[in-house]
């Protein structure tokens, strides 16, 4: 994953300053910040976030008058703290409970990977002994129901959809009701792709939400999304109040920085990443672990408690 490369570059930049034998000059810090900024920008982190992060790190380091070795430690800690703040958020994702209906609704931009990821998540929960069903509430995209149906059939997941009903709100409502009656524990609702510029599409998303009352709404984000990530994610947050993000296509050279910006903008955690087109290409995501891996350090906790 390219994020590892980002970690390496940031580490190298910090090491350059902190491992030199001479004392740290402001110019060194500027060089370090420049390299960190560049690495973040090349990973698609939103530029406003990057500039804010740069100023904030600089202010903390320059204002602090700690001399010598401690100064270097401070630099390291400050950079790590600020980066952590980017990807980590305190919000806890919803945990589905057994013996009750947990409705999970998927939302996101066109082509992000929602339909593919629905089945991946269904399989994930099925393996953990939940009774899982899939509902196709995408009545817009050509072939959407066939896509979900073929995926679900291959994975042996019960599914619901309609070739004739054109109102996604109706299909969603009927499908969820049906699965609830049959005591399904996880009911995943797939919806069509949409974007913030189309008010009608957002209205439809809200209506589907009202009809199925999801315990969890998940925004699916393409890992290679660029500078539009933040605005789109923010708009989805306002309309659908999603509580988790799943990042897809992280098997490519996707830099994931757009998603990091989405996390920062919406204070919503990433819970899974998709790493391929097949159902098994799916990994749980732990922000803390991820950051320490990203920065190439084992004991991030120790560092943070200094």
């Amino acid at each position, binding site marked *: 994953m390219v994020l590892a490369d980002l970690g390496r570059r940031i580490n190298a930049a910090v090491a350059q300053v902190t491992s030199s034998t001479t004392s740290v000059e402001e110019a060194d810090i500027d060089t370090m910040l420049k390299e960190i900024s560049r690495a973040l920008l090349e*990973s698609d982190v939103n*530029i406003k976030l990057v500039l804010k992060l740069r100023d904030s790190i600089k202010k903390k380091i320059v204002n602090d008058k700690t001399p010598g070795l401690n100064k270097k430690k401070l630099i390291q800690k400050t950079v790590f703290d600020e980066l952590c703040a980017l990807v980590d958020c305190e919000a806890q994702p919803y945990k589905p409970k057994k013996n009750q209906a947990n409705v999970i609704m998927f939302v996101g931009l*066109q082509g992000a*990977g929602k339909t593919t990821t629905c089945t991946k998540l269904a399989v994930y929960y099925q393996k953990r002994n939940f009774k899982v069903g899939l509902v196709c509430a995408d009545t817009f995209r050509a072939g959407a129901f*066939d896509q979900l149906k*073929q995926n679900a059939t291959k994975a042996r997941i019960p599914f619901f959809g309609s070739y004739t009903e054109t109102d996604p709100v109706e299909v969603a409502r009927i499908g969820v009701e049906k699965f609830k009656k049959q005591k399904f524990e996880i009911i995943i609702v797939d919806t069509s792709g949409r974007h913030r510029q189309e008010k009608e599409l957002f209205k439809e998303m809200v209506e589907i939400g009202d009809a199925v009352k999801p315990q969890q709404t998940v925004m699916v984000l393409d890992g290679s999304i*660029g500078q539009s990530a933040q605005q789109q994610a923010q708009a989805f947050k306002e309309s659908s109040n999603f509580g988790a993000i799943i990042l897809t296509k992280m098997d490519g050279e996707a830099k994931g920085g757009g998603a990091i910006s989405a996390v920062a903008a919406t204070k919503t955690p990433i819970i899974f990443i998709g790493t391929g*087109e097949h159902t098994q290409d799916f990994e749980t995501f732990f922000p803390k672990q991820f950051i320490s891996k990203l920065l190439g350090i084992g004991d991030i906790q120790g560092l943070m408690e200094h």
Partner: protein
Amino acid sequence: PFSFLQNYIGGKTITNADITKTIELLNNHLIKKNVSPEIASKITLNIQKNLLGSKTRTWESVELTAKRSLAEELQKILTPNTSIDLLHEIQLKLNSKQKNPYVISIVGVNGVGKSTNLSKLAFWLLQNNLRVLICACDTFRSGAVEQLKTHVNNLKNLSIDEKIKNQIELFEGGYGGSDLVAKIAKSAINYAKENQFDVILMDTAGRRHNDARLMAPLQSFARAANPDKIIMVGEALVGTDSVQQARNFNKAFGADRTLDFFIISKCDTVGDLIGSMVNMVYATGIPILFVGIGQTYTDLRTLSVDWAVRMLMS
């Protein structure tokens, strides 16, 4: 947006530091628009030269020079230097003696809008009185064949004229591996010849541009289909990866074959952050045939370079 340049008041000589500052601001401006840092630096290099040239002029002229240079540079990058008159080329081939159908293949990474924009192309060709055969060469992704089937039915039903209903058809061979893809492509060409179709539009499966296992079959596919045009669909949403996506697809067809055109999809989803088109064109020199601006058949447009430059400069 460009107010940062307003700080410059006339009548001072430009120092190197000033130039560096201006270039950084221009760079950041481009990055904000979703131009990748790599491409942004390359673009602003020229502007730096222009600024150095204006050393003895006034501050005000620096502002103008910087802005004008950037706009000119973007205009130059986005203006195609080969013909993008596809209808004309199709007619040329159809008028020749062989009467072979004109073959267009659509390629690109996963989910960018290949199948949808292929259907928009079909609509456009139908409007220009051409008979279109759509060929389902995505034999991998679930529902890919049914997706095209639906589009073909929709396009047939757009007209009540029975004659027009015969203008479009789907050629498919179900799902399977890459051997099947080449076989379907070849059969489709024969079928089109026998049944007097003018244009074949071949959809292909989305693939990761950095996976050799997925990219290699593109070469054998291109050999089998021998397309007159290979069009890559790239999306406006993608970030810095757009550069590498374009480069890798451009060299996926062997030493003597490149892409012919881009279609940049989802331009309606990014507002003025349309930098990914700059990335793809700058990285390859391949021109943009159309931009996609929505999900319906009429949402396909020729790129107005003036509009694009205005968006990028705003």
